[in-house]
């Protein structure tokens, strides 16, 4: 069943532009994509928790290509499918006035295929190919509006993304040259037998830079605010909600933990890059006036939390504290799930705000609570979740990360996390004051205020924001988050799963 995750979006991605060449059937396209994402969501929920590998063409690893499903990839599949489904639901109403929707949904499906591929593949070169499939479709999608600003953002994203891909490819080449294998599990066996690890160190550095560019860690972040704020709103939600996580931190963590057996100081570097992104991203977000740009900078900051937690897990494994390491990794993965929900909620919300007021400049718009109470309530839930106010989900994941930092005696990190939380709260309070309170500014679109197609997706995500806090409960955490964290932590389990040793 696993290849269906890649094959279905790939098929839809090529079918829709083909149909569009002959007939422009917007409704048919939306229905197709809704069925596709809905079906994939159902499939990912049915398959949740399964463990196993799929041999492409029946060839056994390490020579054949294979798909691997373990605790972590199960969770990532559900996150991708869930956000993709809600985003499609939103796009059906939001994208109505656009032309060339066949190409839009086609590229959207190709991006999905690439992300599913990255989440499932057990082979580093395939990971690179899927990564490029997802990245190249996203370059095109960012420039979909074809305005000057969008094209510029798309071009910047293309150049930075291509530089990142070159780093990753060079890392893969060096790794392949030194161990002679492309299968992640096989690499992990061979790396531990290698007498001289200088090439491993070099390729690790290349991977951190390459995937860091994809994930927009702080020295490599300059493309993200432009790209994520210029893309059509559903795409912004996909990019910020899922793409940077799957292509960036998931792929990097999979390689470092399962493939390279956590070389030397890599976890510490990851941790401090995470801490830097978190803090500087937050500070940069404080000064933003454009709602979407603010959300984009906040994505950089929130990615920092995830990276910090994952790196901290690596440090704690190195110190021989596996219990706390699991906690840190669980915190990171929990925050990844949470950030996917509330950041896509906030981006979709920013789209509906733009439709209502015709602008997204925070100094020009205001009084949302009186103009559209539903929208105001949903946006409030989103902003409170991301600022880490209890009982919303963002609070619980930050709590787990802070507890792990304190138990692991990494006090400076705990301090930075708490301080950044305060900054996050500050800039979302600014949004609260300017957008939700304030005075309403005359020209409000009445038709948008009552459009169910725009609100139902927002409501679904808002419910998720409240409900996902339940993952903190030990019983549910044990089923959902713990297998995901252990998939990273127990490298030997992964090897056993793939190679059957």
């Amino acid at each position: 069943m696993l290849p269906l995750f890649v094959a279905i979006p790939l098929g839809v991605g090529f079918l829709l532009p083909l149909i569009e060449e002959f007939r422009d059937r917007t409704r048919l396209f939306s229905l197709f994509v809704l069925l596709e994402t809905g079906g994939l969501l159902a499939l990912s929920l049915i398959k949740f928790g399964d463990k196993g590998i799929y041999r492409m063409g029946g060839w056994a690893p390490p020579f054949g290509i294979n798909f691997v499903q373990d605790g972590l990839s199960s969770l990532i599949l559900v996150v991708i499918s869930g956000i993709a489904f809600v985003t499609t639901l939103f796009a059906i109403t939001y994208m109505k006035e656009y032309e060339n929707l066949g190409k839009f949904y086609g590229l959207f499906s190709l991006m999905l295929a690439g992300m599913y591929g990255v989440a499932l593949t057990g082979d580093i070169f395939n990971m690179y190919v899927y990564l490029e499939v997802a990245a190249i479709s996203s370059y095109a999608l960012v420039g979909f509006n074809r305005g000057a600003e969008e094209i510029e953002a798309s071009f910047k994203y293309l150049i930075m993304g291509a530089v990142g891909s070159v780093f990753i490819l060079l890392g893969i080449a060096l790794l392949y040259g030194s161990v002679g294998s492309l299968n992640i599990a096989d690499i992990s066996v061979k790396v531990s037998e290698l007498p001289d690890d200088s090439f491993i160190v070099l390729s690790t550095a290349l991977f951190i830079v390459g995937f860091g560019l994809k994930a927009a860690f702080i020295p490599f972040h300059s493309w993200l605010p432009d790209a994520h704020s210029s893309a059509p709103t559903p795409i912004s939600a996909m990019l910020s909600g899922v793409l940077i996580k799957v292509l960036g931190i998931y792929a990097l963590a999979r390689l470092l933990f399962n493939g390279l057996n956590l070389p030397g100081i890599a976890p510490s570097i990851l941790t401090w890059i995470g801490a830097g992104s978190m803090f500087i991203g937050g500070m940069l977000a404080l000064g933003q006036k454009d709602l979407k740009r603010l959300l984009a900078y906040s994505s950089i900051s929130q990615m920092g939390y995830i990276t910090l937690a994952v790196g901290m897990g690596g440090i704690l494994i190195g110190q021989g504290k596996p219990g706390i390491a699991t906690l840190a990794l669980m915190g990171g993965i929990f925050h990844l799930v949470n950030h996917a929900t509330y950041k896509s909620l906030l981006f979709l919300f920013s789209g509906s705000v733009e439709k209502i007021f015709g602008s997204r400049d925070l100094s020009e718009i205001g009084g949302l609570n009186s103009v559209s109470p539903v929208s105001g309530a949903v946006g409030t839930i989103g902003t409170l979740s991301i600022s880490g106010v209890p009982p919303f989900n963002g609070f619980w994941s930050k709590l787990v990360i802070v507890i792990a930092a304190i138990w692991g005696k990494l006090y400076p990190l705990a301090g930075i996390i708490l301080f950044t939380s305060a900054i996050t709260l500050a800039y979302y309070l600014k949004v609260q004051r300017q957008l939700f309170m304030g005075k309403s500014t005359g020209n409000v679109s009445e038709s948008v205020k009552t459009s169910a197609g725009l609100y139902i997706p927002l409501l679904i995500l808002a419910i998720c924001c409240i409900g996902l806090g339940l993952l903190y409960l030990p019983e549910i955490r044990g089923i959902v988050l713990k297998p995901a964290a252990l998939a990273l932590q127990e490298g030997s389990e992964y090897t056993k799963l793939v190679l059957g040793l």
Partner: protein
Amino acid sequence: MTGMSSIVKTVTRWVSPFIFAFGIYIALTGHLTPGGGFPGGVIIAGCFILLTLAYGKETTFGLFNLESSAVTDSLAALAFLCMGFLGYVFGGGFFNNFIQSGFPGTSFRLLSGGNMPIINLAIGLKVGASLFAVFAYLALFRAIEED
């Protein structure tokens, strides 16, 4: 007169059929010799690009325009995917080589390798059509700028 000088046109007329045939050869014998669908497709697209450069875009676009390249591109990709699904149906797994198990053929002959020649052909068409489409789009944008 569109296109380049008559020397270039004559040489192109002479070599382009060979380039085209060579592209098809590389794509078809991908399972036997170095090469395969991708390089074969690139060579086929190269033949069209050479024709466009020598004779001007009007001549080539009469043979193969943007729409037909987009359609070929999507159809070839779908054909490739179909081979994967047929592997599911007949071979019990995605991309399983079901023709090979039923009809192994003689080793090192053209009719061997099962699914591979068909898959290579699909890839060749896909790559050829999409590379040509990229070139054609660039040529068209140039034309819009000149107007």
